[in-house]
């Protein structure tokens, strides 16, 4: 067991070296830290949840595209180049490799790329943040869970896509359709006075739901906040199961 854990850690480090390799990752994290941080200073932000929302709302688009290109397209590249066969020949269970891919292609890049601009904002506006640390952590976590959900879907797509290009494009298309669907539902809900429809739309984007909860714009039920975490858990589980049972490189 200990040996398998050691091998899993080695494989995670190896795969992370590809996901976070320079110069792509370095350019991305510098840009996100600088521009995300800039978004924190152009308006007076005094509340923790507003600070994180202002910084990460636009930043999230870039992170999702990174997850689609380095995450999903990266996994398809591993399959296409034959490196996946090398991974699979490693004496560790397949579900372990699936978890490694989710960690190195989705979770760690999301933590770092969302974390850098948030940290810059926290440093620059520390005295405003110090009164609302939980709001900052909660909002950051909501973005992280949302990114993990997108990343898990992208990872699933990557196993079926034929080329890295197709994998990246289909992933970005999913992200676009999902977000447009949320906007349309919210719009129809607002114009027809159907509050439940608006709530469903808000539930699809966890950070919007949390923002609305903090700002008091909507009275949200527990399921509104549980929707994305559940969906993320389901898609991550589906990726692990498919990779273990059905996937043939």
């Amino acid at each position, binding site marked *: 067991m200990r040996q398998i854990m050691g091998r899993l850690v080695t494989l995670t480090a190896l795969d992370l070296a590809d996901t*976070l390799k*320079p110069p792509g*990752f*370095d350019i991305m*994290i*510098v840009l*996100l*830290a*600088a*521009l*995300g*941080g*800039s978004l*924190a*200073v*152009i*308006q*007076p*932000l*005094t*509340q923790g949840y*507003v600070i994180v929302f*202002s910084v990460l709302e636009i930043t999230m688009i870039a992170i999702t595209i990174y997850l689609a290109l380095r995450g999903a397209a990266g996994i398809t590249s591993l399959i296409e180049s034959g490196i996946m066969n090398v991974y699979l020949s490693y004496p560790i269970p397949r579900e372990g490799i699936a978890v490694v891919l989710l960690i190195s292609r989705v979770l760690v890049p999301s933590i*770092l790329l969302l974390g*850098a*601009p948030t*940290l*810059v*904002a926290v*440093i*620059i*506006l*520390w*005295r*405003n943040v110090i*009164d609302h640390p939980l709001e900052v952590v909660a909002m950051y976590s909501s973005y992280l869970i949302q990114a993990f959900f997108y990343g898990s879907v992208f990872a699933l797509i990557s196993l079926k896509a034929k080329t890295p290009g197709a994998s990246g494009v289909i992933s970005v298309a999913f992200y676009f359709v999902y977000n447009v669907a949320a906007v349309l539902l919210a719009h129809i809900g607002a114009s027809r006075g159907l509050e439940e429809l608006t709530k469903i739309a808000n539930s699809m984007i966890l950070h919007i739901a949390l923002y609305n909860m903090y*700002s*008091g*714009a909507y009275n949200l039920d527990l399921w509104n906040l549980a929707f994305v975490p559940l969906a993320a858990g389901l898609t991550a589980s589906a990726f692990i199961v498919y990779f273990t049972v059905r996937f043939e490189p």
Partner: protein
Amino acid sequence: MKPPVHLPLYSRIAIAIAAGVIVAALLGQFFGAKTESSFSGAIGVSEGNAALIAVLSVSSSGEVEISVEGARSVYYLEIAGSPLTAINQVTALGVQVESQRFFYDVRSGLGYGDALLKADPALLAVLPRLSGNVMEAGKAGKNSFLVREEVEAGQGLAVIAIPGSDRIEYSGVFRVEGYYRMNLETALLIASAITLASLVPTLAGRALQKLSQS
């Protein structure tokens, strides 16, 4: 040819954060947030008209102060969401919106707008009382009123003025409270410290390695 030697991941991330702190502090110094914003406007009114003035603090908490001249009575209520939404919502009550304007001061995070409402005078008289949270503004002189309220981020005020003359004038100020931003000097100091702390162990390790090899 030797392969490029990259810095360790923690150094690369630390340098990115240091660069982010410098860029954000620089931008903040020259184009950063304002902690006070003033606004004013005037609306020509006649019989059957009322004026609606709406303000919203998008991103910060603070105090809104609005003085209204030329009104017979002034009512106000706290709102959440866009002032435009507040303006549009009154149309559902059979009130016609004859004109509306909306402005947004990005640097103070304040949105404000006004609208000219037209409806049956009897409806206009009861309009402010349709919501349970409506408050009556304090009188500051003949036909002049003063509204002063604390607002949180995402909250604002909708002020309804029933005319006492043919022109309603308003002016207001929004003061952000509890805002702090690190100054450029401190930011430069912190960014330098982050960069040094992340580079020193790596560079010292490499120097020691070279020394031991030679």
